[in-house]
C-alpha cells in the first residue's frame, strides 16, 4: 500500500517513468507479436516441408509455375522408398495483384489431394463442412483468412479466381460453392482455397498464355508433386534418388528448404531482441533516474526506518518493490496498448493479419518489464539499504 502511495505522491515523475517503460514494452509487444506470427508461419513451413519431398519439373525451380506432366507422378510413385506421392496444382487467387505488397502469404488456390493428410506431418482440420473429393466440381474449402476476407460461410458461393481490375476480355471466372471451412493454422493454408485436382487443373490451364493453352491438355499437367517417404527413409537421399531415377523430375532436399525457413526465423528473433534492448534502454534509464531521486528525497525516512529496526534487506525490498511496481504498471499498459494496436491493424488487413499476440508473449512482456524495473532499481535500492542511520537522520 505504502509503495502505491509513494508513487502517487510523486505523480508526474511516476507517470514519466511508467511512460518510459510503457514505450519500451509497447515496442516489445508489437515487434514481438510480429515475430511470433512469422515464427508460427515459418514453423508451419518447417513441419510441412520437413517431412515431404517437393518435386518439380526438371526445367523449373521448386517455386516456379513451370508445369510437369502427369505421367511423371507415376514414375515418382515407382521410386524405391516412396510411400505415396500426390500431385500439386496451384494458381494465384488474385492474378495481376502481385504488385500489391503484402507481408503475409498472398491468397492462393490449390488442389486438395485426399489421403495426403495421412502422410503429412502438417495437419489441417475442418471447422465445419466437408472436404472436397477428387470427384468434386466447383466446390471449395476455404482457409480461415481467405474465408474471413471474402466473408464466406459454408453454402455461400465465391467467384474464383478473383477478377483483377484490368482483366482482359478472355479472363474466365468460375462460381464455386463453399463446402468447408478450415480451422486456423496460423500459417500458409489460412490463405488457401482448396479445390479438387480436376478444378485446379482447369484454373491452371486458363492461367496459361493463350498460345500455350491451345497446345496442351490441362488435365495431363500438374504444377509439381509431393512425395512422402516410407518410415525410416532418409528424405534427402530420397530426393536425390528421385532426381536421378526420374529424368523429367527435380526434387528439392527437405533439409535445404527447412534451413531456409530457419534462417528466416532468425531475422525475426533478431527484431524481437532489438525491441527488447530498446525497452531496456528507454525504460531502464527512466527507472534508474526516478529511483535515484526517490532515494535521495527519502533519506530521512530511510534513517527513521533503520532506527526503528529495519534491516538492510527490508529497505532493499521496499525500494525494489517500488521499482518493480513501476515496471509492472508500465509493462501492463505497454502490453495492452501494443496488443490493442496489433488488433486494430490486423482488423484492417485482409490477408489475415501480421501480428500474433500469445499468452507466452504476454508473460514475456510483463516478466521483462518487472525485471527491468527491479534491475534498474537495484543500485539505488542498495544505496538506500546501506545508508548509515545516523547520517540519514541528520540529513535535511
Amino acid at each position, binding site marked *: 500500500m*505504502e509503495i502505491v*502511495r*509513494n508513487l502517487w*505522491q510523486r505523480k508526474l515523475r511516476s507517470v514519466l517513468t511508467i511512460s518510459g517503460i510503457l514505450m519500451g514494452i509497447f515496442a516489445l509487444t508489437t515487434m514481438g507479436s510480429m515475430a511470433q506470427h512469422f515464427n508460427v508461419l515459418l514453423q508451419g513451413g518447417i513441419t510441412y516441408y520437413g517431412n515431404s519431398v517437393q518435386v518439380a519439373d526438371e526445367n523449373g525451380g521448386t517455386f516456379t509455375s513451370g508445369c510437369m506432366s502427369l505421367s511423371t507422378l507415376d514414375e515418382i510413385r515407382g521410386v524405391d522408398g516412396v510411400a505415396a506421392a500426390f500431385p500439386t496444382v496451384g494458381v494465384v487467387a488474385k492474378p495481376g495483384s502481385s504488385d500489391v505488397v503484402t507481408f503475409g502469404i498472398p491468397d492462393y488456390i490449390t488442389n486438395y489431394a485426399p489421403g495426403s493428410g495421412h502422410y503429412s506431418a502438417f495437419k489441417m482440420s475442418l471447422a465445419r463442412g466437408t472436404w472436397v473429393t477428387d470427384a468434386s466440381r466447383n466446390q471449395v474449402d476455404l482457409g480461415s483468412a481467405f474465408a474471413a476476407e471474402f466473408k464466406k460461410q459454408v453454402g455461400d458461393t465465391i467467384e474464383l479466381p478473383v477478377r483483377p481490375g484490368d482483366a482482359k476480355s478472355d479472363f474466365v471466372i468460375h462460381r464455386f460453392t463453399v463446402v468447408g471451412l478450415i480451422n486456423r493454422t496460423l500459417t500458409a493454408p489460412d490463405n488457401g482455397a482448396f479445390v479438387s485436382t480436376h478444378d485446379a487443373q482447369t484454373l491452371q490451364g486458363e492461367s496459361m498464355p493463350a498460345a500455350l493453352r491451345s497446345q496442351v491438355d490441362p488435365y495431363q499437367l500438374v504444377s509439381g508433386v509431393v512425395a512422402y517417404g516410407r518410415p525410416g527413409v532418409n528424405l534427402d537421399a530420397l530426393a536425390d534418388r528421385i532426381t536421378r531415377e526420374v529424368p523429367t523430375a527435380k526434387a528439392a532436399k527437405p533439409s535445404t528448404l527447412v534451413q531456409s525457413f530457419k534462417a528466416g526465423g532468425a531475422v525475426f528473433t533478431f527484431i524481437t531482441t532489438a525491441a527488447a534492448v530498446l525497452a531496456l534502454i528507454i525504460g531502464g534509464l527512466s527507472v534508474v533516474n526516478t529511483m535515484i531521486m526517490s532515494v535521495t528525497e527519502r533519506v*530521512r*525516512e530511510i534513517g*527513521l*526506518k*533503520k*532506527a*526503528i*529496526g*529495519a*534491516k*538492510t534487506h*527490508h529497505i532493499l525490498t521496499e525500494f525494489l518493490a517500488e521499482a518493480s511496481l513501476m515496471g509492472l504498471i508500465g509493462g501492463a499498459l505497454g502490453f495492452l496498448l501494443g496488443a490493442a494496436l496489433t488488433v486494430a491493424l490486423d482488423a484492417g488487413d485482409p490477408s489475415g493479419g501480421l501480428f500474433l499476440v500469445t499468452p507466452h508473449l504476454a508473460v514475456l512482456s510483463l516478466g521483462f518489464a518487472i525485471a527491468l524495473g527491479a534491475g534498474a532499481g537495484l543500485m539505488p535500492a542498495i544505496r538506500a539499504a546501506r545508508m548509515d*542511520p*545516523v547520517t540519514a*537522520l541528520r540529513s535535511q
Partner: protein
Amino acid sequence: MPAMRVEGLTKHYGEPPHQVRALAGVDLQIDQGEFVAIVGRSGSGKTTMLDCVGLLMRPTAGRVLLDGVDTGTLNERERAELRSHRIGFIFQEFNLLPTMTAMDNILLPLRYSGGDRKAARTRAEALLNEVGLADRSHHHPTELSGGEQQRIAIARSLINQPTLVLGDEPMGEVDTETASMLLGLMRRINGESQVSFLIVTHDLELASRTDRIIRLRDGHLIDDERLAPEAVTWVTQAGVRR
C-alpha cells in the same frame, strides 16, 4: 537490573589532528522506570550519547549494556533486532511518514519487528487513546499540528513495548505550552508502564520535572542530580491536558 548502562563511553569523530572528542569516557546507569533528562550546551555530546545508547552508532571505546546485554558484541542484524524490540525513538522533527495515516505510522515498527498485528492494533488503539488522539487515527501528518504529530510519534515509540525510550530534544519544535504537555504525557506513560525515558532537552524548566538530570560538558558527565520525589509526584498527578 538496570535498563541501560554505559561504561567508559567514548566517541571520537574523524582522525587527528582534526579529531573531535564528542564523548570522553561517560559512565551512567539508568534503572527500570527512571525518567532522565540530559542537558548541556550545544556540542557537548548529547546527541552522540543518544546515538550510541540507541545502537545507531558504535562508540570508539566503552560499552553499552541494554537489559544486561553487551551490545558491542552484537552484529548489525542483532543490533537492529534489539533496537526494534527494546528501544523507542522520538525525534525533534517527529519523522512521521507523510504518506501514512496516524494509525499506520504508529504500526510501522511492526513491519520490521514482526509480531502479532492484531494485538499490536489493539495496543495502537490504546496508545492513541492514551495520547488523546483516538479520533485522529485516520488523519495524515499534514492534517495534524506539531504537538499532535509528536504525540503520534510517542505512541509509535511505544508500540513494541520497549524498555527504554530515547528522545533527542523531542520538545524542541513546539511552543512552551505544548512542550509542557508533551512532557506531562511522557511522564504519565512512564509512571504507568515503567518504561524508562532518556530525554535530551535544553529547557531547564522541563528538565526539573524529571527524576534525574544528567549534565554533559565537552563529552564529560559533570553532574548527575536526582530530584526530590515529591516534586516528581506533583508533576505526575498534574497529568496531561487534553
